[in-house]
C-alpha cells in the first residue's frame, strides 16, 4: 500500500507521460501583475511546471501587454485572452501548448442591389456595427469588407440613401459571399427613416463631391415637360449655367469643355440637344449621377474642372417594366426586363421631340417662298447585360442621338412652255454615338476588375444644296450644287481598372487606359455640276490622329479613426503628330473628423486636359469644335486647392462650406474678330493662348430624407482670364464670371400621391463687351466700290466702335422660378401621373444677349430675352 502511494506520488511529481495525458487547462494561476507582458505571463504559466509554451516571435510580440480579467484565472482563460490580443489560437499536446497564428481576417464580399429591379446600388455602404469599419460598393455594386475574426457573431449593416437598411449577423470564421438586396423606401408602406451612420456627408473623404439621387432629379420641375440631369446639376453651388436655357456647365470658373461627362464610363463630347436647351441624358434610364468639382480621385483625368459620372440603369433582372411620358414637346418610353430571369436583362430607352411637326405648318404659312422647315431630335439608349456567375458579368451598351434641322423651299414656274422648278435646301445636324462593352471579373474576394472597350463618335454637319433648272435651246437644263461642312471626333478606347480592398483601412484602385482619337475639325466639300464651271472639291482642314494614355493608382486610406486620406497619382500622355506631352498629376484629399458629426476636409489636385473646345463666346452652337493639343497649341493644365467643412445636423440635414482656388494654364479663345474657323483655314492660326484663375466659396445645405427634400446652395466667386493678345494684354473677367449664384430646390410629398416641387435660381449677369464711344474712320480706307474717290470737302466717314475693356459690362441679373405639381394614381397596370409645370413662373425677361443698334437719334441698346412664362403638361406612366 505504501509502495503504491509512493509510486503514485512519484508519478504525480514527475509529471504525466506526455503522449497519453494532458495537463489540465483548468488549473488556476494567480497572476502577479494586472497587465503583464506576454513574456511574463508565459513565464508564470510555465512556472507551474505543467506546461511548455511554444510560439514563434514572428507572430507573437512578447512585449505586448495582456489585460487579465481577474486575479485568479484558469490557464484556459489566460490563453484565450492572449489569443485575442495576439491573433493566435493554441493547440495542446500533453504538456506542450503551441500558439499558432491564425488567419486574422476574413472577407465578406458580394453585390448590393435593388430588391425589386436588381439594379446595382452604387456607393452603398456596408459596415460592421460595433467598430464602424466599413466600405462602399463600387460602380458595379461590388463590395468587399475584410474584418478580424471573432468567435462571437458580427453584424454587418448595409445601407443606401432612400432604401431600408438591412442588418446581417454571422459568426465570421471564413471568407463569405453575401449578396444583398435592399428595399426602396418608396415602395414600402411604412418607412422607418434612419440616415444610417455611414451615409453622412462628413464621412466621405471625397470632398467637392455631390451625389444627387436620381429620384430627386426626376422630381424637379421640368422644362417643357423634360426633366434634365445637367440642368439639375446647374442648381448646385459651384456649377453655373451659361446662357438662358442652355445646359452648358461651368464649374468653378472653368469653361464648358473642361467637364468630363461620362456615360457608363464613356466620355461624351457634346451633351446637348437644341443648343443646350436639353441634354442628351434621358432621366428615366439613369441609375446614379455624381458630380466632382475638386479633389479629383486619381482614377479620373483628361478634363480640368469637373467630372460628371453618370451610370445608366442595367435593366430589371426580375420583371418586365416600362415607363414613359408624353409631353408637349417630346415623348419618351423606357422598356426593361429580364431575358433570362436573374441572369440577363435589357433596357431600351428612347425619346423624340415633335417640334418639327408643330412648326412645319407655321413656317409654311409664314414663308414667302413656299418654304418649310423643321427641327427634331431623338435619343436612343439600349443595353443588355448578362451575369455568368458571381465572378463574371458582361455589359453591352449603346447610345445614339441626333439633332436635325432642315429648311427647304421650292419655286415652280413655267418658261417657254416648259415647267421648271428651283429648289433650295439647307440642313444642320449633329449627334453622338457612344458604345461600350464591359466585363467585370472578380479575381478573388478582395480584387475586382473591369475591362471596358468603347467606341464613340461625335459629328456635326451643315449642308446646303440647290437645284436650278433653266431653258437652253428649248431644252430643260438642270444644275445641281451642294456644299457640305463636316466636323467631328471619333474615339476608340480601352480601359482596365482594378479595385483591391485588402482591409477596411485601404481601398486601392489602379488601372490603365488608352484612347485613339481622330479629330476632324472641319472638312469642306463643294460640288456643282454646272456645265461651264463644274466643281467637285474637298478641302480638308488637317485631320489629326492622336493617342492618349493614362495610368493611375490611388488609395483611400483610413489612417486613424479620425483621419482618412485619399492619395493618388495619375499619369497621362498624349501623342499627336510630332508632339508628345505627358503629365504627372498628384491628387490628395483628406478628411479629419472633429467629432462624429463634424469634419474638416482639404484637397489638392493637378489636372491636365489634352483637348480643347473652340467656342464662339456668343452662344453654345453646335459649331463648337473639339480640337486636340498640338505642337502649336499645348494642353491645358490646372492646379486646384480646396478647403472645407461638413456637418450633419440632427440626422436629417447636411451642411457643407467649401473654399477653392484654381489656376488654369493654356486656355484658348478665338482671336479678336474670328468667330468661326472657316473651311480651309487652320484653326491653330485663329486662337490665342492664355491663362485663367478663379476662387470662391460654396455653401450647400442638403436634406436627403423625409417628406420634404432638396437643397439650398450659394456661391460667391471670381474668375478671370489673361491673354497677351486680347484686351491689350490686360486681365479681364471671364464671360461667365458670376459674382453671386444662389439656388433653392425643394421637393415636397404632401400626400401619398401628390408631389410638389419648385426651384428658384439667381445669378449675377454675364460679363459682356459693349460699345462705349463711336468715332470717325479714316476715309480712304473704307472699302470703296469703284465710284467715288474720297474728296476732301465732303465728310462722310464710316464709324468705328470703341469698346473699352473686354467684358466690362454686366447684363442684368438672372433669376427665375420654376414649379411643378404631380398627381399620381395607381392603376391596375401600374401607375400614372399628371405633371403640370411652369417655367419662369413670374415671366422675368432675363437677358439672353444685348446688342447695339442705330445711330444718333435711333441709337439704343436692345436686349433679347428668350423664354417668358411657359406652362407645360405631361403624362407619365409606369408599368
Amino acid at each position: 500500500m505504501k509502495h503504491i502511494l509512493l509510486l503514485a506520488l512519484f508519478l504525480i511529481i514527475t509529471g504525466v507521460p506526455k503522449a497519453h495525458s494532458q495537463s489540465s487547462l483548468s488549473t488556476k494561476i494567480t497572476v502577479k501583475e494586472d497587465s503583464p507582458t506576454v513574456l511574463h505571463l508565459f513565464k508564470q504559466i510555465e512556472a507551474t511546471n505543467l506546461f511548455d509554451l511554444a510560439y514563434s516571435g514572428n507572430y507573437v510580440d512578447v512585449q505586448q501587454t495582456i489585460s487579465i480579467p481577474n486575479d485568479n484565472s484558469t490557464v484556459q482563460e489566460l490563453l484565450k485572452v492572449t489569443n485575442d490580443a495576439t491573433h493566435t489560437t493554441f493547440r495542446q499536446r500533453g504538456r506542450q501548448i503551441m500558439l499558432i497564428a491564425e488567419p486574422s481576417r476574413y472577407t465578406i464580399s458580394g453585390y448590393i442591389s435593388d430588391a425589386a429591379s436588381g439594379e446595382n446600388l452604387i456607393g452603398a455602404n456596408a459596415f460592421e456595427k460595433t467598430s464602424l469599419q466599413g466600405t462602399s460598393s463600387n460602380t458595379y455594386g461590388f463590395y468587399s469588407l475584410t474584418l478580424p475574426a471573432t468567435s462571437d457573431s458580427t453584424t454587418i449593416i448595409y445601407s443606401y440613401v432612400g432604401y431600408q437598411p438591412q442588418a446581417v449577423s454571422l459568426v465570421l470564421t471564413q471568407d463569405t459571399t453575401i449578396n444583398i438586396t435592399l428595399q426602396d423606401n418608396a415602395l414600402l408602406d411604412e418607412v422607418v427613416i434612419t440616415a444610417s451612420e455611414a451615409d453622412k456627408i462628413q464621412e466621405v473623404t471625397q470632398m467637392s463631391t455631390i451625389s444627387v439621387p436620381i429620384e430627386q432629379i426626376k422630381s424637379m420641375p421640368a422644362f417643357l415637360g423634360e426633366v434634365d440631369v445637367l440642368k439639375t446639376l446647374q442648381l448646385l453651388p459651384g456649377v453655373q449655367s451659361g446662357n438662358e436655357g442652355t445646359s452648358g456647365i461651368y464649374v468653378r470658373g472653368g469653361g464648358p469643355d473642361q467637364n468630363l461627362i461620362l456615360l457608363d464610363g464613356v466620355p461624351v463630347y457634346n451633351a446637348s440637344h437644341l443648343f443646350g436647351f436639353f441634354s442628351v441624358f434621358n432621366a428615366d434610364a439613369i441609375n446614379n449621377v455624381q458630380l466632382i468639382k475638386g479633389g479629383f480621385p486619381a482614377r479620373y483625368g483628361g478634363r480640368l474642372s469637373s467630372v460628371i459620372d453618370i451610370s445608366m440603369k442595367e435593366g430589371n433582372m426580375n420583371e418586365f417594366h416600362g415607363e414613359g411620358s408624353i409631353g408637349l414637346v417630346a415623348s419618351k418610353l423606357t422598356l426593361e426586363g429580364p431575358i433570362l430571369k436573374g441572369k440577363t436583362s435589357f433596357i431600351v430607352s428612347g425619346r423624340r421631340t415633335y417640334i418639327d411637326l408643330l412648326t412645319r405648318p407655321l413656317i409654311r404659312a409664314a414663308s414667302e417662298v413656299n418654304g418649310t422647315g423643321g427641327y427634331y431630335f431623338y435619343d436612343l439608349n439600349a443595353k443588355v447585360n448578362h451575369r455568368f456567375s458571381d465572378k463574371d458579368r458582361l455589359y453591352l451598351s449603346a447610345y445614339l442621338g441626333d439633332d436635325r434641322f432642315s429648311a427647304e423651299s421650292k419655286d415652280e414656274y413655267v418658261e417657254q412652255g416648259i415647267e421648271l422648278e428651283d429648289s433650295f435646301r439647307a440642313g444642320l445636324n449633329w449627334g453622338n454615338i457612344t458604345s461600350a462593352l464591359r466585363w467585370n471579373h472578380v479575381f478573388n474576394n478582395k480584387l475586382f476588375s473591369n475591362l471596358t472597350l468603347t467606341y464613340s463618335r461625335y459629328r456635326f454637319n451643315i449642308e446646303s444644296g440647290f437645284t436650278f433648272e433653266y431653258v437652253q435651246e428649248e431644252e430643260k437644263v438642270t444644275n445641281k450644287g451642294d456644299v457640305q461642312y463636316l466636323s467631328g471626333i471619333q474615339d476608340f478606347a480601352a480601359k482596365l481598372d482594378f479595385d483591391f480592398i485588402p482591409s477596411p483601412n485601404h481601398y486601392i484602385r489602379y488601372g490603365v487606359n488608352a484612347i485613339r482619337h481622330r479629330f476632324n475639325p472641319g472638312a469642306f466639300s463643294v460640288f456643282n455640276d454646272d456645265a461651264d464651271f463644274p466643281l467637285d472639291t474637298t478641302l480638308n482642314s488637317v485631320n489629326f490622329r492622336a493617342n492618349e494614355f493614362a495610368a493611375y493608382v490611388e488609395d483611400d486610406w483610413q489612417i486613424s479613426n479620425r483621419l482618412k486620406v485619399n492619395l493618388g497619382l495619375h499619369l497621362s500622355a498624349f501623342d499627336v503628330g510630332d508632339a508628345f506631352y505627358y503629365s504627372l498629376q498628384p491628387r490628395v484629399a483628406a478628411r479629419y473628423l472633429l467629432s462624429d458629426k463634424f469634419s474638416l476636409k482639404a484637397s489638392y489636385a493637378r489636372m491636365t486636359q489634352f483637348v480643347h473646345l473652340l467656342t464662339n463666346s456668343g452662344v453654345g452652337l453646335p459649331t463648337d469644335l473639339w480640337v486636340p493639343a498640338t505642337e502649336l497649341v499645348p494642353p491645358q493644365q490646372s492646379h486646384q486647392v480646396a478647403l472645407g467643412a461638413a456637418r450633419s445636423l440632427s440626422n436629417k440635414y447636411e451642411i457643407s462650406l467649401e473654399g477653392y482656388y484654381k489656376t488654369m494654364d493654356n486656355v484658348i479663345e478665338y482671336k479678336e474678330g474670328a468667330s468661326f474657323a472657316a473651311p480651309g483655314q487652320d484653326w491653330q492660326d485663329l486662337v490665342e493662348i492664355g491663362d485663367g484663375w478663379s476662387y470662391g466659396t460654396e455653401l450647400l445645405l442638403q436634406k436627403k430624407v423625409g417628406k420634404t427634400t432638396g437643397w439650398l446652395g450659394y456661391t460667391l466667386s471670381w474668375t478671370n482670364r489673361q491673354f497677351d493678345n486680347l484686351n491689350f494684354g490686360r486681365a479681364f473677367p471671364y464671360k461667365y464670371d458670376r459674382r453671386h449664384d444662389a439656388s433653392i430646390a425643394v421637393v415636397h410629398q404632401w400626400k401619398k400621391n401628390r408631389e410638389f416641387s419648385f426651384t428658384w435660381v439667381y445669378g449675377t449677369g454675364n460679363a459682356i463687351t459693349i460699345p462705349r464711344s463711336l468715332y470717325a474712320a479714316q476715309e480712304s480706307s473704307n472699302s470703296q466700290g469703284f465710284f467715288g474717290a474720297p474728296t476732301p470737302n465732303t465728310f462722310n466717314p464710316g464709324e468705328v466702335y470703341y469698346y473699352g475693356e473686354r467684358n466690362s459690362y454686366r447684363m442684368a441679373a438672372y433669376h427665375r422660378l420654376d414649379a411643378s405639381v404631380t398627381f399620381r394614381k395607381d392603376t391596375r397596370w401600374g401607375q400614372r401621373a399628371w405633371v403640370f409645370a411652369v417655367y419662369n413662373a413670374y415671366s422675368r425677361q432675363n437677358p439672353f444677349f444685348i446688342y447695339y443698334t442705330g445711330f444718333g437719334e435711333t441709337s439704343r441698346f436692345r436686349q433679347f430675352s428668350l423664354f417668358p412664362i411657359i406652362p407645360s403638361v405631361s403624362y407619365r406612366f409606369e408599368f
Partner: protein
Amino acid sequence: MTRNQLFAYFFALIVLGSCETVIDVDLPVEPTRLVVNGFINPDSAVTVRISKSKFVLDRAESFTLVEDAQAVLFENGQEITQLNHVGTGLYTSPYRPQVGQQYTIQVDADGLESVEASSEIVKTVEIARLTADSIRRENGSVCSNGDCVPTFTTAYRFQMTFTDFEERDNFYEVVSYVVVRDSFPVFDDANPGGPIEYEIFTERRRAFLISDDPVVSSSEFDFGDGGFFGSSLLFTDDIFSGRSYTLNFTTEGAFGGKITQLTVMLRTLSVDQYEYLRTLQLQEFNEGDPFSEVVPVYNNIENGFGIFAGYSADSVVVDID
C-alpha cells in the same frame, strides 16, 4: 446662304416666343475725345482730319468736326511745321514727309484733352516689274423674247514683282485706280422722251481687287467664300520675307465708261497703318453678328482715337488705248 444667315434662320425658328426690348443701359458717359485721322506719305502734303468722338448713346446724328485745333508736326523729335485748317476739319501743311523718318503729331483743342501720335515713313519697296493684260469676262446675259446674249466686262489681270527687305517685318497694300471717261445723260423737261445730250467727264475711281495668291488668301482676310473684303489687297511678308515675289491679282467688277489710264500702286505700310486697316475691316465684317467676339480697332492716338500712320508707295501707270 452664308452660315450666319443659316443660324439666323435657325434661331428664328426656335425663338418664336421670345421677346426683344429696348433697355436702359446704365453706362457712365464716356468723355469726348479728339479723333485724328491721317495717312502721310512722301508723295502728298501732310493732311489730317480732326473730329470729336461721340458717346454711344449720344443723340447727335453725325460726328462733329473740330475747326479750331492747333496741330503741330515733328520730324524725328524736332518741330517742323504747323498744320493749318483749310475747312471741314482738314488740317494741312505743304510739307512733304521723307522716307525713313519718324513723325509725331500733337493736337490741342479747347475743352478736349491733348493728343499725340507717332509713326514712320517706311522705306519704299519698288515695283520691279508689272505686266497687265485685259481679259473679257462674261458677267451675265441680256435676254429679250427668249433670245439671250451674254454680256461681258473687261477685267485686268496683273503680275507684279517686287523684292522684300529682309531686315524688318513689312506690310503691304496694293491699290489700283482707274481714270475713266464716262458720260451721263442730260434731260430737258421741255423735251420729254430721251436725253438731249450726254455730258462727258473724266473721273478717277478706285478699282476693286481680288486675288487668290497664297500670300493674300492665307491672310486673315479670306473669309472663305472666295471673296476678299475690301477693295485693296493687304498682306505681310511672312511668306516671302527678304525675297523677291510675284503677286497675281485681277480687278473685279464693271467700271462703266471707258478706261483711259490704270494705275497700280504698291504701298509699303507702317505697322500702324496695317494694323488699323486689318482691325477696321474685321470690325466691319463682323458688324451685326452677335456670335462673334468684338474687335477693338487699332488706335495709336494717345489720349484720343483715330490713326496717324505713314506709308510710302511706288506706282506704275498703264495706258489703255
